[in-house]
């Protein structure tokens, strides 16, 4: 049984079938739609470039071929680990032999009514309907999601203001210099970016800041991070703390695995517990969890990926491999920061742990993935004399 019918849950279900499991396979999801893809929501769906027809993760025939007991619009409300049952919102109890948890995350919100969030298809369509030329959009949070939405709204002719609590957007993830260069893309287009401001409340007029000022808006989008969907597991006995806590095999309890945005697991490649909200990780971890669930105990494999993500903002494609958070060093190893065409390497404790590219051939960055997977020492990866930008 798989709970959560999106990227991670579907990857898990497909892998269970591919690996030869031919018993009953139940896929439970609380959204009404068949599994669909989220990254286009803040890109081609928000801009209107794509119709919703392009969003399903699999065509109907492929989904059908999996022979699933597919339960859409059905929320799981409880888990009994010793009894091996999942409780659904309609009161039914579903027995399972093995279980994969893939319930993802939901957006953080602020007090007050009327603000948009951007996580589901319905969220994206609701926001899209309100973005007209000349309308004033305030985006709270200038992370990747906020930046993408701001870029689309700008292109649609909206007057966009980004409000960001940190002094430099994304600095905690990509470093101060790279964060500054990325945020320059907003300023170049006349998108207003106010950093170091905290929004405390959404009001009818706009976004209220900590000092009482109200930034007026027709529409407000909250892009201030997310919370793992784990409340339904509260009395399950599973360890939950910013995600479902798993070991290096993605196992949370006997016969219970977790994958995707909701899972916090020990990544042996970096030696730290992590929870990754990237599309590629959802698929990879769904596959890994499914394989480990079916495998004999000694045949299980630790899940040790080099995380990957991309983001499209204005005409920039940003791609990154590795684990950038908490890095000690950043160095520009190819290209030029100011031209927004570069590869930056990230080091943590003497070792290469990440690489981020902007505007370079996407092929170029694949070599860095290998170097990160191989645990290349920083000194070797980044030749002496390479211009280092300051650490985050």
């Amino acid at each position, binding site marked *: 049984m798989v709970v959560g019918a999106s990227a991670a849950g579907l990857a898990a279900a497909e892998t269970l079938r*591919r690996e030869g499991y031919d018993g009953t396979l139940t896929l439970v999801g609380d959204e009404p739609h068949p599994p669909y893809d989220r*990254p286009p929501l803040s890109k081609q769906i928000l801009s209107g470039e794509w119709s919703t027809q392009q969003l399903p993760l699999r065509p109907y025939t492929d989904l059908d071929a999996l022979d699933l007991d597919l339960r859409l619009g059905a929320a799981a409300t409880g888990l009994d680990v010793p009894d091996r049952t999942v409780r659904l919102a309609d009161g039914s109890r579903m027995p399972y032999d093995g279980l994969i948890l893939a319930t993802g995350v939901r957006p953080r919100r602020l007090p007050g009514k009327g603000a948009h969030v951007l996580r589901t298809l319905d969220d994206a369509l609701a926001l899209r309907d309100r973005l007209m030329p000349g309308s004033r959009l305030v985006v709270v949070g200038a992370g990747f999601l906020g930046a993408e939405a701001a870029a689309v709204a700008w292109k649609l002719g909206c007057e966009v203001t980004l409000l960001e609590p940190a002094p430099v957007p994304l600095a905690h993830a990509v470093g101060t210099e790279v964060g500054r260069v990325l945020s320059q893309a907003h300023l170049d287009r006349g998108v207003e970016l106010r950093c170091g401001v905290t929004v405390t409340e959404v009001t009818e007029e706009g976004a209220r800041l900590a000092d009482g000022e109200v930034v007026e808006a027709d529409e407000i989008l909250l892009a201030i991070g997310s919370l793992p969907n784990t409340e339904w597991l509260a009395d399950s006995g599973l360890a939950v703390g910013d995600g479902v806590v798993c070991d290096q095999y993605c196992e949370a309890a006997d016969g219970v695995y977790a994958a995707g945005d909701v899972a916090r697991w020990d990544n042996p490649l970096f030696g730290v517990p992590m929870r990754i909200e990237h599309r*590629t990780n959802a*698929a990879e971890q769904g*596959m890994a969890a499914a394989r480990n669930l079916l495998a004999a105990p000694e045949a299980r494999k630790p899940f040790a990926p080099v995380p990957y993500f991309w983001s499209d903002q204005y005409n920039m*494609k940003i*791609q990154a491999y590795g684990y950038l958070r908490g890095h000690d060093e950043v160095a520009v190893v190819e290209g030029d920061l100011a031209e927004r065409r570069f590869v930056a390497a990230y080091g943590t404790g003497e070792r290469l742990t990440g690489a981020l590219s902007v505007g370079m*051939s*996407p092929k170029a960055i694949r070599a860095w993935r290998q170097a990160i997977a191989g645990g290349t020492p920083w000194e070797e990866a980044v030749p002496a004399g390479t211009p280092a930008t300051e650490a985050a």
Partner: protein
Amino acid sequence: MLVELDVPKCVASGQCVMAAPDVFDQREDDGVAILLEEHPGDELLDEVREAVAICPAAAIRLAEQ
């Protein structure tokens, strides 16, 4: 086996090239995937299935086995 690539969906991640290098490549400039072999031999079935599963844009489909 028949492989389909939905080019407009591709996000240039390169996952397919790593999973099935004999079947996919990426364009030099923008990294968009290229289908090298529309009808790969059966020995590549596992690799192609891996690429289908891992593509973060759901852009690859195994139309026939």
